[in-house]
């Protein structure tokens, strides 16, 4: 069953449409990578899914029901969590506090929060060592891990990661992707936005966007055969 | 003025009854125009409502000024022992013009109106301006004031006016600011063209307006305030100014006497606001108290005009000085602020015109219990028995009961009305002011009798005491002379 379904989504800033009607699905349990160059409309797509932007027309269905005009907070509650572009950790708080806030939607059961924190830190052992460090003083890679970890704290069904590899060394990017793959294998559906085709090996599904439209979709074995260069060139 | 209620705010705005000034405007505010058609024709003697105590203390019949022979006898009288009959008043030998009967003859030596300044006077009307603070730093409650203004003239107009002229009262709010007071008085003089101006309250406003009025040759009357201001000519030198009650300086012997009578041998403090207009008073008060108390004068101090955050410090110093009595001349809110934080028991004694004193008693009791203040008008315990006042007040205000502001304004209006009546038919500013100087005594039974041998015509004050069981100031003694 498709956990996420996008139907003819049109989104614009003011009078300028950025997405010109895109359709795709993400199946439960898979890792889906949304590829495209700068300005292709990837971030617009995922921030709309998270509820930060309102679509001009079209629909986002989560677990079969339309999300409509639900605010981000209730989308988190129902299981969609976004690790935003540029990380956006809370800079003057500790790693631990950042994570606690990630579980804001679960805050009524401290025990649950504690368990989730342990679970999440298992994916990112480097963060576990730095639980009391101020987030603003972490390195770029660590901040990215923290952003993903924080998003995981709400125990989401669908984890969306926007540009995890941006500004990271290839090695560090790999560490993040691998952690993501483990998260997915533990049952959380993952939607990754990437400019970097290096993420493709981890994907069960790949979508390629250009100028606000979806130009190519590949599933399963086809992902490995996807000619990225051709995809980027729109061939 | 002793009793200045201070709020720290300076209102942005100006006058209350402004619409009056627009000729095209049909609406008049309630306070202002008191022209009433009808009433008893003929002259009105300003009699009939003499408070018993006053008359007795004074010992003289009311000096009915002007040509008042044919007094209409219908004026209700309060207390029963007043001069009710027309003949009593009319025949009084203190009547300056001494003209019985017709009432048409002008005072013998008064200038003919033909030669005088008759601004604000027509054959049928006299225009009078009153200014007082109803908004601003030390406002008197607006409704209280609006109810009070014009009560007396309203009554007189119903009876046919003064020498056949109805008195039209214009009221302006001076916002408790001297600059505004001056501007309002300028408006009275130059735009509204009133005959004379009455200062309702506020020493510095009265000072500012009086100085302007002198420059514009407009008669200006108010209760007595300070006599001098540093760097300025004394008020006594102003050619058109008249104080209708004792000045602060003139009251210093009274304060010393009150101290001696109630607190003799006990320590005493003198506290005066640091308004420079009170410099002279402070010096004289300290001198008088020192003469009476000697080394028992334990503490003297000038305090900020708006005593707020300084109040605890001042209160602490009063208590440490061991004073049992405090001679106080500063704003009532300062008094309340200091009294509120006093940790010792003291008795306050003060001079002055005490507009709105009862409100202070209401708010400040028990902290100011038995405080004694001098006042140009008696307490409401006396004024409530003054049937003419009570009836006039109720008639003008839809039956509501009078307060002490009503009494204060009524007192000053009736005194002015009395002088106007005494001046006679030939009313000009010159004849009006000449009458003040010539008539030996005006006694309206509310203010103590006047005697204008100088600009300061007061001869006595009433002594009021804060009675906390009644939450108001009651009359302890009338007509106390220095």
């Amino acid at each position, binding site marked *: 069953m498709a956990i996420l379904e996008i139907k003819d989504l049109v989104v614009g800033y003011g009078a300028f449409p950025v997405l010109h009607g895109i359709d795709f699905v993400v199946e439960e349990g898979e890792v889906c990578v949304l590829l495209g160059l700068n300005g292709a409309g990837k971030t617009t797509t995922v921030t709309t899914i998270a509820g930060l932007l309102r679509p001009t027309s079209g629909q986002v269905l989560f677990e079969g029901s339309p999300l409509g005009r639900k605010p981000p907070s209730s989308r988190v509650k129902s299981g969609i969590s976004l690790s935003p572009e540029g990380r956006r950790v809370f800079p003057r708080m500790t790693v631990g506090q950042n994570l606690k806030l990630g579980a804001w939607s679960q805050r009524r059961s401290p025990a649950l929060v504690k368990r989730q924190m342990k679970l999440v830190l298992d994916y990112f052992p480097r963060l576990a060592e730095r639980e009391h460090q101020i987030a603003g003083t972490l390195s770029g890679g660590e901040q990215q891990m923290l952003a993903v970890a924080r998003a995981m704290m709400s125990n989401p069904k669908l984890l969306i990661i926007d540009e995890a590899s941006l500004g990271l060394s290839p090695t560090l990017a790999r560490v993040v992707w691998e952690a993501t793959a483990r998260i997915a294998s533990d049952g959380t559906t993952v939607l990754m936005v990437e400019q970097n085709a290096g993420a493709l090996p981890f994907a069960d599904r790949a979508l390629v966007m250009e100028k606000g439209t979806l130009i190519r979709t590949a599933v399963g074995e086809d992902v490995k055969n996807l000619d990225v260069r051709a995809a980027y060139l729109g061939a | 003025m002793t009793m200045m209620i201070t709020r720290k705010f300076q*209102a*942005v705005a100006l006058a209350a009854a402004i619409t009056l000034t627009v000729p095209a*405007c049909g609406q008049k505010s309630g306070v202002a125009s008191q022209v009433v058609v009808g009433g008893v024709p003929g002259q009105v003697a300003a009699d009939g409502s003499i408070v018993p105590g006053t008359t007795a203390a004074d010992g003289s019949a009311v000096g009915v000024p002007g040509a008042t022979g044919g007094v209409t006898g219908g004026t209700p009288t309060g207390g029963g022992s007043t001069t009710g009959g027309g003949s009593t008043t009319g025949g009084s030998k203190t009547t300056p013009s001494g003209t019985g009967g017709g009432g048409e003859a002008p005072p013998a030596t008064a200038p003919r109106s033909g030669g005088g300044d008759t601004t604000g006077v027509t054959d049928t009307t006299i225009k009078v301006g009153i200014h007082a603070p109803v*908004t601003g730093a030390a406002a008197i409650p607006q409704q209280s004031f609006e109810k009070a203004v014009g009560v007396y003239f309203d009554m007189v107009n119903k009876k046919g006016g003064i020498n056949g002229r109805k008195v039209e009262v214009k009221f302006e709010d001076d916002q408790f*600011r001297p*600059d505004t007071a001056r501007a309002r008085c300028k*408006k009275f003089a130059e735009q509204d063209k009133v005959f004379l101006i009455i200062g309702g309250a506020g020493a510095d406003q009265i000072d500012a307006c009086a100085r302007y009025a002198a420059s514009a040759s407009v008669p200006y009357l108010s209760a007595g305030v300070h006599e001098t201001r540093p760097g300025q000519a004394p008020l006594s030198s102003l050619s058109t100014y008249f104080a209708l009650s004792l000045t602060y300086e003139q009251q210093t012997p009274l304060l010393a006497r009150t101290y001696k009578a109630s607190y003799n041998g006990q320590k005493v403090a003198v506290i005066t*606001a640091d*308004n420079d207009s009170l410099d002279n008073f402070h010096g004289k008060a300290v001198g008088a108290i020192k003469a009476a108390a000697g080394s028992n004068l334990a503490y003297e101090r000038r305090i900020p005009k708006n005593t707020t955050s300084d109040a605890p410090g001042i209160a602490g110093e009063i208590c440490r000085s061991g004073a049992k009595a405090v001679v106080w001349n500063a704003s009532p809110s300062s008094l309340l602020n200091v009294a509120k934080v006093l940790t010792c028991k003291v008795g306050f004694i003060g001079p002055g015109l005490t507009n709105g004193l009862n409100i202070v008693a209401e708010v400040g009791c028990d902290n100011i219990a038995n405080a004694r203040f001098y006042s140009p008008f008696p307490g409401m315990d006396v004024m409530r028995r003054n049937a003419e006042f009570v009836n006039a007040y109720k008639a003008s205000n839809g039956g509501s009961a009078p307060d002490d502001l009503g009494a204060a304004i009524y007192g000053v209006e009736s005194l002015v009305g009395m002088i106007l009546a005494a001046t006679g038919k030939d009313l000009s500013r010159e004849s009006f002011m000449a009458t003040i100087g010539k008539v030996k005594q005006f006694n309206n039974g509310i203010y103590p009798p006047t005697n204008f041998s100088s600009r300061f015509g007061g001869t006595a004050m009433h002594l009021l005491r804060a009675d906390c069981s009644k939450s108001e100031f009651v009359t302890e003694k009338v007509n106390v002379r220095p």
Partner: protein
Amino acid sequence: MSAPTSPSSEAPDATLDLPTVEEELWSAPEDAESERFRPSRAGWFARGALWAVLAWFVLAFPVNFLSPFTLGVSDVSAASEAAIFAIVGLSLNVLLGYAGQISLGHQAFVGIGAFTSAYVVVNLDLAFWFAVAVASTLGLVQAAVLGAISLRLTGLYFALVTLAFGSFAQQTIFAIPKLTGGEGGKEAPRPALFDSDYRYYFLCLAFLAVVLFLDWRLTRSKAGRALMALRENPRVASSYGINVKAYTLIAFAVSGLFAGLAGALMAHHDEVIVAQKFGFNLALLFVLMTVVGGLRSRSGVVIGSAFFALLGSGHLLELLEPLTTNVFRFSLHDFLTGTIGLPIEFVALVVGPILLLLTITKYPGGIGQQIAPIREWMLGHRFDIHAGKVKEVEVDDVRA
């Protein structure tokens, strides 16, 4: 906005047919199209007629010349006060609108100007004109000193410094009886020639005209353009080599100059000037009238300031009263003082903040924006209802 690199921009005629900075800001879409637009003969006539009405209203109406109404000395005195408030508004506009600094102690600048002028005339026995010059200069110096200090702080802290300065002036400086005449106030006589309120009104108008001209010159000078550039984009502007601090300091100095001048005029307008007048509320009222007038719009600020001066003194309601009673059969005065129990004195205090909040949240251009279409039309442009649209009441700290 281009950086002021051309040295010729200081020359008076070099910029003659360019739109002023203000116009550029307010009416972006005009330019080429309206340069070509020439009103028809009827259009010129209509514009001329409106100008004539405006001139009549400002110059003739207050002094009962060619007027069906009769205004008294007190009314024309209120008009003088409106002109003085307009100068204060323009002063604050330089600070708030051009330099992006909020002053919560502007009443102190005005007050110090007022008492200085009174002191020079009364105690030093010098001429009124000299006193005005001294008051203005002192205002300039004060503002420059405070400005120099504030340049080391961020914008919000400057608000605190002015607030503290205002309370210091009010409680300490204005409590010196030698300077302020104590509670009873300080006399401030007018020069013999302008003793009449009618003449004094024209004197105030003349000073207002001078201030308007100086303000106009400022916005077209190198400093003014630099400040505008700073507002548009501080980083770009400073990368062009604009000396941010120097120009901000100039704005402070000019603002102080205007405030001192307004203070002097206020003193001699009131003839007795008291310290009580210069409280914190006046400072807030100044901010309010300038923002509601419309920052960076000279005409808007003048109208806004005059509006609040007349509203405060009750004369505006008085002027409107015949209209409301005769046309709408409704007495605004009775409604306010009777029905809802709001004394005329407090109308400005209650209505003003509401207008302020509406302005900054809904109509950031203030009155200046509302009248922009008419003003542009009167200046010979095509009537455009959208002229002068502003999105936000930009009062950023230019140094932020």
